[in-house]
């Protein structure tokens, strides 16, 4: 059973517009969420994170929103650039005892930013 779900395998956006990537989770014990970006033939690179005590975290063009009641988070990229074209993974962890070192990943969303 997938605990972290990214229901959109792909997304295409025009350069300069907003990209919105979505992620849903089922485990109510998750209290820390991360987004990773991955280019082909490279490892994932950390992009931005958010703790469950917050509902928004911003870093430059990237903003992550967390809606705990809906168990939903989203990554907004504004404005989108061609270099943002990559696969984006949502990941989550819970800090309660066993498994606190584990990240649970979604399947990823492939973002294509069209010039």
């Amino acid at each position, binding site marked *: 059973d997938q605990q972290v779900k990214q229901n959109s395998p792909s997304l295409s956006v025009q350069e300069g517009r907003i990209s919105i990537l979505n992620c849903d989770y089922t485990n109510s014990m998750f209290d820390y969420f991360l987004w990773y970006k991955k280019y082909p033939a490279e490892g*994932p690179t950390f992009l931005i994170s958010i703790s469950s005590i917050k509902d928004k975290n911003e870093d430059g063009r990237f903003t992550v929103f967390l809606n705990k009641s809906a168990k939903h988070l989203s990554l907004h990229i504004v404005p989108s650039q061609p270099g943002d074209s990559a696969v984006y993974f949502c*990941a989550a962890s819970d800090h309660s005892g066993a498994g606190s070192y*584990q990240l649970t990943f*979604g399947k990823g969303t492939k973002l294509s930013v069209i010039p």
Partner: protein
Amino acid sequence: NAGVTQTPKFRILKIGQSMTLQCAQDMNHNYMYWYRQDPGMGLKLIYYSVGAGITDKGEVPNGYNVSRSTTEDFPLRLELAAPSQTSVYFCASSSQGSLSNQPQHFGDGTRLSIL
């Protein structure tokens, strides 16, 4: 600063062969992880280590072994390769576990095919 280095980048094995995937980090991180990523799927944790001499199983440990004799190195051993182990393997490290909200840094992966 090399970060996390994985070798080899590619390997083809025959069923029943064994091999060791190497992982080294130069960031003096205590925590290290091994993940596998199957096509169209998210990353799944195989094993992790919280320091030299300490290792523990992740979500999918069967068919693998690890050791952690130094802070820098965290090799992953496949004893009897099976087609189900065809995957891309990623090693990661972090300065503290996910308990402390420190992001994991990933290597570029080893693409392994078992034929």
